[in-house]
């Protein structure tokens, strides 16, 4: 993340220095302003969703949802406790419904609750990467924003892209999950071999 951010900043500011130096600060202020007004909107939205979540927890619905998704969640995210699994289940459910803003606070809590590697506490574990990859490849089955935008722009059939879109959504998520599993198992095999070699050297 740090490197990508740095590259984007360097490229853009260098380009602006040549083309239009006055626009640099202006763009930064616009961006920061957007962030603050988005944050205000999000405080309101998170307030609603976290409020609902507390009722969900109190009535036991979130426990039941977690139990329902447990067979899947357990297989994808190995070795997390029940509380974290609950947040993961809620994150996935909200993402499936297209409620990204409800999914985000659940994911933040899930990441906070996940076990960390004691040797490298600042490095994301496989489960954390899995959560990010699943959300970042989109789980939304019904892209309501796009459908209403198409309708607004005079589409004869606003839902005409739905089938390819769902296939793309599912394909990207499946590829993401398989990718994480593959990379983590290759990583584990390398670590094991290294340990074995170290043992043989002794």
């Amino acid at each position, binding site marked *: 993340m740090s490197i990508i951010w740095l590259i984007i900043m360097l490229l*853009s500011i260098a380009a602006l220095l040549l083309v239009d130096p006055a626009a640099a600060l202006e763009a930064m202020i616009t961006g920061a302003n957007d*962030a603050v007004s988005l*944050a205000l909107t999000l405080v309101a939205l998170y307030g*609603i969703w976290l409020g609902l979540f*507390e009722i969900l927890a109190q009535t036991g619905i979130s426990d039941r949802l977690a139990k329902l998704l447990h067979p899947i969640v357990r297989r994808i995210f190995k070795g997390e406790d029940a509380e974290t699994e609950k947040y993961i289940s809620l994150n996935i459910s909200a993402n499936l419904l297209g409620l990204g803003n409800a999914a985000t606070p659940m994911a933040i809590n899930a990441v906070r609750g996940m076990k960390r590697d004691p040797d490298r506490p600042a490095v994301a574990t496989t489960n954390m990467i899995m959560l*990010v990859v699943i959300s970042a490849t989109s789980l939304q089955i019904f892209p309501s924003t796009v459908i209403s935008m198409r309708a607004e722009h005079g589409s004869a059939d606003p839902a005409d892209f739905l089938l390819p879109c769902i296939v*793309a959504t599912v394909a*990207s998520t499946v590829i993401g999950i398989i990718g994480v599993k593959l990379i983590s198992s290759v990583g584990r095999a390398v670590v094991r071999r290294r340990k074995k070699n170290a043992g043989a050297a002794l």
Partner: protein
Amino acid sequence: MTLYIVPAIFLGVLVLSLLRRKDAYAAFVKGAGEAIELMAGVLPFLVAVMVACELFRVSGAAAALADIVAPVLAPTGLPPQLTELLLLRPLSGAGSLSVLENIYETYGTDTFIGRCASVVYGSSETVFYVSAIYFSKSEIKRLRYAIPLALVASFIGNIIGCNLCRLI
């Protein structure tokens, strides 16, 4: 259909909490109170991501990069007119939505390009935003391969979706 999801969820949950004789009001207030603390942690990341995104767009670096990348897209079957959308989609929802609107106005919603753009926007997420925000309240600094993998997976999904648009 989707219009009914949110009110139905709230209604169902509130009715259930009434049936179980729980204090929904107290619970809601408690949960809502966590929002400010959560946002205070998220805001710095939001500023960093959105400043970078705005600079990327305004400086023309996004458009220039799109021109460079466009020829690479040819063998994938993705129309080259979508490069700017493909580049901005992982960065910002609002920024890429204005690009999508632009595509609809220029090429129409029901053309191949318009439908492909719909698939790209509808089947992808703001990868960088999600990655930054999800870790905002933890001490995790290194995300390892999370972002590249999410980008590659989304891109393959986009290719599959757009090529299906030709057939369906």
